[in-house]
Every structure is written in C-alpha cells, then in structure tokens.
C-alpha cells in the first residue's frame, strides 16, 4: 500500500488546505498554491477536499505504485504518463500495482496536483499534512520528496474500488476569466499612502515575475511603487495574496508559505479566486493587475465555492 519515489522531481511536496488556527503563534498556514486544482484532483478520485495531494513543481517525479489505485492529475500540464501511456488530465485514471507514473516535459503552468484515492498516510502536524520546508515539519518527514522515499497510502478499504464517475461542472467563467487577463486585486490597507503615479502604474503597467519567487512570495519587477512619504508601520497580520512593497519599490505577493505578520505597506491583495492563476505563472512571465471592489471579489469567491460544493457533494 505505498508509492516508491524513483525520481523526486524538482520540488514535490505534500500539501493540503493548510494549517489553520495557529497563525497567532507565528505558525504559517502553508498548504497548496493552487486550491482549485487541488480540490478538483481530490473530487475526481472521490476524496474530501482536505485530503493532502502531491504538489509537483515544474520537473515532476517518477513514482512506482505497489498496489492498484486510482489517481487524478490537475493543474499544470507536465506530460504525465502511466507506463508510457499518456494520462488524461482532469479525470480519474486506474493505476495498477507495479505501474510507473512518470512526469515529463512542462507544457503549460508550473504546479500539478496528484491525488490518490483515499489519500496518503502521513501524520498531521498541528492539524495539517502540509509541508513547511523552512520549518522542517509536516509533509513527508518534514521535507520535499527524495529518491527512495516510500509513501504509504491510506488503508481505507474502498481505495481499490473506482470512484463514482462525476460529471463535474466547470468553475464559472466569471471566476476563471481569461488566462491572459489581468489578475484581479482589491486595494490594500495602505493603498492611499502610495503616490498617484505609483497607483496608476500599478494598474496600467506590467510586472515581471522574477526567478527569486518561491512558495513564500512572488517577487515582481516593474515600475517602482513609491509612498507619498516614508512611513513606519508596525507589523500586522498578512493574508495569502497580500502585495507588500518594501522600500526598494518592488512588490512582493505573499504566497502559501508566507510569514504570518509583516510591516511593509500593502498596495493591494490578490483576490482569492485569482491565486490559482497566479500560482501557475512562470518566472519571466508578465502580470498585469486590475483593481476591483471587495464586494465583487466576494461574489466571485462565493460563486467558486458553490462549484466546489457541487463537486464535493
């Protein structure tokens, strides 16, 4: 009842919906970067949404299953094959004991999610299976997968029975928007402290995602964003998608492994429904932002949640 890691890939980690309730103790949330892909993968194999999936980054692993199971791969297209046969994305597939699941060349996106029917058998840390690599806890043995690891699968009795076929309705077009569209954001608490040129540039110019971006933060380069006057802030709580601007004027979007608090001014927050699209951007790609109001952002989130609920019913 396990998976053997023949090749680990560039960064393959176990992630779930995150470590909630411990942020007041400085414990970061972690969890998946692309919640939509994670929830879809779980729904396809009949898992509830909180079950951990493998988050697979850019160069994927080679995994050998020791038992018959069912898997689904969503998110980035990394040319996945089972024993040489292409695996169709976004649907459940049968894997036989001894089969190898091989991730190949990246075609689109950055992060793929692999769900296994029944899930992985790992001990949660502070209520979550998500890896926090910097902290050395969670996930598999507190680290990303390495060659030779053996990950045990859940011992639930139904894992060998196929998941019920579900015709999952797609997430609404209002939520998904166009892949090339601007990333929708709401104004941040310190929006008004930025000078008029910076606020205009933020909405009109493109920002490049730099190679220094990781699960903690996406560092962007573009027009310098400046305050009308220097301001000293006390540190305060941060959310997934907050866009902080340090003194050098280059914005940083806080991602899944973000710290719990921070003291830089926040020009904006990426809308929750846009985080999956942002998480699939490659370093070097350009990003534009579009400011919408919080009411519209919440309407989009509620629309997406209704779709999730229909998948998970």
């Amino acid at each position, binding site marked *: 009842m396990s998976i053997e890691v023949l090749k680990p890939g560039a960064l393959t980690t176990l992630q779930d919906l995150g470590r909630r309730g411990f*942020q*007041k103790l400085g414990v970061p949330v972690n969890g998946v970067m692309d919640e939509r892909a994670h929830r879809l993968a779980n729904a396809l194999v009949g898992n509830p949404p909180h079950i951990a999936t493998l988050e697979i980054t850019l160069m994927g692993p080679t995994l050998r299953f020791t038992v018959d199971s069912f898997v689904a791969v969503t998110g980035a297209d990394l040319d996945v094959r089972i024993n040489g046969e292409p695996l169709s994305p976004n649907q459940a597939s049968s894997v036989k004991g001894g089969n190898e699941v091989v991730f190949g060349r990246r075609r689109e996106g950055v992060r793929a999610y692999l769900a296994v029917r029944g899930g992985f058998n790992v001990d949660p840390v502070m209520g979550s299976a998500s890896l926090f690599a910097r*902290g050395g806890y969670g996930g598999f043995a507190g680290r990303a997968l390495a060659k030779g690891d053996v990950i045990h699968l859940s011992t639930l009795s139904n894992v060998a029975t196929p998941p019920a076929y579900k015709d999952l309705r797609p997430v609404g077009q209002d939520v998904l928007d166009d892949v090339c569209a601007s990333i929708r954001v709401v104004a941040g608490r310190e929006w008004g402290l930025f000078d008029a040129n910076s606020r205009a540039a933020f909405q009109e110019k493109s920002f490049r995602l730099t190679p220094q971006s990781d699960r903690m933060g996406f560092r962007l380069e573009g027009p310098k964003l400046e305050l009308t006057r220097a301001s000293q802030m006390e*540190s305060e*709580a941060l959310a997934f998608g907050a866009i902080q601007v340090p003194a050098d004027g280059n914005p940083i979007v806080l991602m899944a492994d973000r710290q719990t608090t921070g003291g830089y001014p926040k020009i904006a927050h990426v809308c929750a429904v846009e985080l999956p699209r942002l998480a699939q951007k490659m370093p070097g790609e350009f990003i534009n932002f579009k400011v919408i109001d919080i*009411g519209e952002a919440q309407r989009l*989130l509620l629309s997406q949640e209704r779709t999730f609920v229909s998948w998970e019913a």
Partner: protein
Amino acid sequence: MAANQLARELGARIERINYPFIHDIVPAMTTVGIHYDPYRVQLGESGKLPYQIVEALLEQAMTDDGEALLDTARIIDIPVCYGGEYGPDLNEVAEVCGLTSYEVIHLHSYELFDVMAIGFAPGHPYIGLFDEQLCPPRRATPRTAVPVGSVGLANRQSVIYPVTLPGGWNLIGRTPLRIFNPSRSEPCLLQAGDKVRFVSISAAEFGALNEHAGGAQ
C-alpha cells in the same frame, strides 16, 4: 503599550465569541487580524455581502462592554545564559547603552515583561518594553544564521529565536528551552499576553537544562 494591550484584549474577546467563520485571529502590536471564510458567513435575506456582516459583528464586539480577559495572564520563567559564547553582543550592547554588562542583565531579568506579539516565525515572541536605557539599535548587518534559543535585544524589545534563522538583533544570551517544537501538543511555549521573566543562569546550568541537544536543531 495601551494599544498593544487593547489589541490583545480584543483578540481574546473575539476568540471567546467563537464565530464559526473565523479561523485565525492574529493580534499584533497595535492591530488584530481576522481571517475568515466568506462562504461560511450566514447571509440570510439581508442582501449583504459577507464582509459587511462580519464588519458589523466585529464592530459590535469592539464596542460591547466586556470584562477584561487578560487578568489571567500566565507567568513563564525563561532561563537565559547571558554573555560569552551564548550572548556575543552583550558587551557591545552595554557599551552602546552606557551601562555595564551586569547592569544590562539586571535590567533585562528579574521583572515581568509582556509577550506583546508572536510573529515572523513559529513561536517567535516580541517581549517588552524594557527600560529606556535598553535601547540599542539593530545591528547594521544582520547575521545569516542566529542559533536557536538566542535572545536578541533592540529598541527596548527582546526576541527569542525559535529555530535557526537570519537576524539582525543584538544577541545578549541564549535560553536552553525549546520555545517551538512542532511535535509537542502545545508547539509554542509562549503566546501573546503571557508575562515572562528572564532568569540568569550559568553555562553549567544551561548545559543541564539544554533542550536543543540531541539533534533537536
């Protein structure tokens, strides 16, 4: 200081009301961050959006007269071996503050101080405010790796490094206690609102109490 106490009290009050849609309450120096799931908020027939309902509820919680919840603060003693290899910046701090090393230790220990906030890293406390004389600035060049348990001092506040991290605080000592251990049922030794007392110990006592040994870090 008053704003910090108010932030912590408000955080405690909202926590006690226990709204089902709120999953994290993060008191900071002068603010309280509320993380909630908009789709868990009962919208009813009002036509209002989740944030409008949550804003109204929080405003009510802020203005309600409630008894103070912070009277029952825990008191936690933190043993610290000051100076020497554990506190390489102690002498420099003393010089900057115009004090002797002994005076720095004296002003830093014995009395109770507040855990004003936790942040930056798991279980990483901000403790203060210390005597006005204990006001050295942060180091111009941060260290790339500050050992776990190190006690830093700057601008009348102290931090304790829960894991080995980069950091720019002046290192005046080290505690043998593990203030963060993810596999403990209570992973963090301290929480905002606790009162702590630093207790000066010798290097031999540090060795006897050392929880970092055995590959813990």
